[in-house]
């Protein structure tokens, strides 16, 4: 009998440990989820004011300004654009007029402070996030501007 009690105690302890592990796992998972927003959503204030999120779209032509290792540029989804600053070396395929995805947080004066700018690896390849932002903007434009503009 005694060994059976022991075994039950062990199983209960095991389940308790597992439950704690799973809770911690899910908590860490929850706190590390990074959501994506388009420039339009950001200008509408839908993005969080605290914490990390991702934005994507096209780099506005002529908006890239460098100062030392600091770079400022604008991202647009064709409906709205937003200011982004980044410190560091940009990926090779970062170009004006091309798709880009940036990860970071909202800073002061409505400037998005990116700590990561994601490269696309192929000239013809559009990051899915950026593509979606443009897609969404199309709908947005369609709803706000007269039809016939859509194509």
């Amino acid at each position: 009998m005694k060994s059976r009690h022991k075994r039950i105690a062990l199983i209960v302890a095991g389940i308790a440990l597992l439950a704690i592990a799973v809770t911690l796992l899910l908590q860490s998972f929850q706190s590390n989820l990074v959501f994506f927003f388009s420039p339009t959503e950001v200008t509408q204030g839908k993005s969080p004011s605290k914490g990390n999120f991702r934005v994507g779209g096209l780099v506005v032509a002529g908006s890239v300004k460098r100062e030392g290792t600091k770079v400022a540029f604008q991202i647009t989804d064709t409906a709205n654009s937003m200011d982004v600053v980044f410190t560091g070396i940009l990926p090779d395929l970062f170009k004006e007029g091309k798709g880009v995805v940036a990860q970071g947080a909202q800073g002061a004066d409505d400037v998005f402070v990116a700590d990561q700018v994601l490269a696309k690896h192929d000239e013809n390849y559009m990051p899915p996030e950026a593509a979606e932002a443009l897609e969404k903007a199309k709908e947005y434009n369609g709803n706000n501007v007269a039809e016939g503009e859509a194509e």
Partner: protein
Amino acid sequence: MIPDIGHYALMIALLVASLQAILPLAGLSGNNEKLFAFATPMARLQSVLIIIAFIILDYSFYVNDFSVMYVANTSNSNLPLIFRLAAVWGGHEGSILFWVAILAIWTLAVTFFAKELPLRFRSTLIAVMGLITAGFLLFILMTSNPFERLDIIPFDGRDLNPLLQDPGMVFHPPLLYMGYVGFSVAFAFAIAALLDGRLDVTWARWTRPWTTAAWVFLTLGIALGSRWAYYELGWGGWWFWDAVENASFMPWLIGTALIHSLAVTEKRDAFKSWTVLLSICAFSLSLLGTFIVRSGVLTSVHAFAIDPSRGLFILVFLALVIGGALLLFALRAPSIGLGEKFDLLSRETLLLSNNVVLFTATGAVLLGTLYPLVIDAMGLGKISVGPPYFDVVFVAIMVPGVFLMGIGPIARWKKATVPELTDKLKWASVVSIVSALLVPSVMGKFTPMIFVGLLMAFWVMSSVWVSVSTRLKAIPTGTLRQKFKSFGPAFNGMLLAHFGLAVFIVGVTMVKGYEQESDIIIKKGEIKLINGYAFRFEGIKPIRGANYVAKQGQFYVSKDGKPVTLLTPEKRLYLAQRVVMTEASISINPVRDIYVSLGEELEGDQKGMWSVRVYFKPFVQWIWMGCLLMGLGGILTIVDKRYRLKKKTSKATA
């Protein structure tokens, strides 16, 4: 003309592979022994056809046959020969053909080395491999024909993605694929066992070297990919928890669990159902990896094309294979049985805990990898899971696992005792705690994570030493070499692999704990002092490569007035695709890497100044050195003669 032969070869191969699958399975259900005889010849014929098709495709690359669309899209006449030959797996169609070609190689190997197995079991096993081959061939012929021709032949090809023009491209994909596809043998073995309703110790012994071989390939493939990313991407990172990396890492984790579980099945006739389930999981995750990587759902260098029909095909294929296998498992597992019993404290229990740890770790990685894909597929938005999740969760799960890893090889099978274990391991624990405190004090920075990492590494190392010294003492006579020889390669291989993991942990801990990164602006003739090293920038030199032009920075690095090295990072412009690539320059040594990556030249009044990124990566080479040791350990266990079954004496050693 020649490419068409390749196309026809694939069509015939599909027919033959179907027969290879259907005939023996019909024989199994109808108990018709005659049909089993078809398995081997069909398998060989089909494999040869596929390999011929693959060689033809590679030949088209060799002769720059741009009438083949795939060649025109992924190669260029200016591409160096070695990259042209490797470009065959540089795109979607070719890499799937390559996948099947590797499967053909494994199938051929099975037909030649499985002779000891009973005809019935061997035929079923080959039939299952035929099913997988047929599925993939159907996929190629329906959605991804690499031999598709162009009506208007382009003057030159579009070139291989410059990121892939690297020696890594020659070795990384083949090794990785050998690993992925190698698990198909263990999978076929598991399915055959389920269909047959039996799982013998001898069969477990037969499958061990095969599984270990796949695992070795995967280990080396992942390590090589990581090293490639480290120097090619220019960011100094070696692991990004990118979905594609995770896709290769999950089969590795389950494969690691599998080789341990197989050891128990073979030696103690225990964990039988579990071993079968792990075999199914390992290959399922390989297939899932192929899906994730090749379906284009990801923002990644590995994702080639976005074509929904391909994704759908793989998804359906995946559902059929995994669903079917698991259903079969649910129905038939009871007939295989659980196997021998064991005590609560025993090597079996420790290995079981190892399996639980690896399984949980896989689950955590799977959650982080698939969740964003599922959310996206359901149209609920785009999210990503940050690397901190993986870092925290993975380390938290693996630390207890590594701790148990130090005890496992010391514990006895069936029943171990606490006094014996503490007696054997007391010095190991003292040594590892002291060393884990000593190293940070030498390095001048202490954090709990550094301590834990080093503790685990030294714990495993000292445990390996305890295993060795215990065995050495047991043999009173002979030279050291003779003694080691008498342990047997399998035992030495296990210890080497464990030691390799410890080396790997040292590398990870030191890099994570002590790496330094700085972005600088520098102009010609200027000297910057970083981390005790002086960097003198001697300007930019123009360079011309085979298919690119480059600006090459000249950095003279010295320490305390003594020259250390010249680093020459490049900014390359690949001419065919007009793509700019950063080529980092790294000074390698066992205790530290100096890594320099060229940014861009500043504009306006700051012209002539360059932004440059400099990294110091202490012990980073240990990461890949550890993986190499793990791989070598695996190879040692494969060559152990114990696993070569002899037809008559197979029972004798059981």
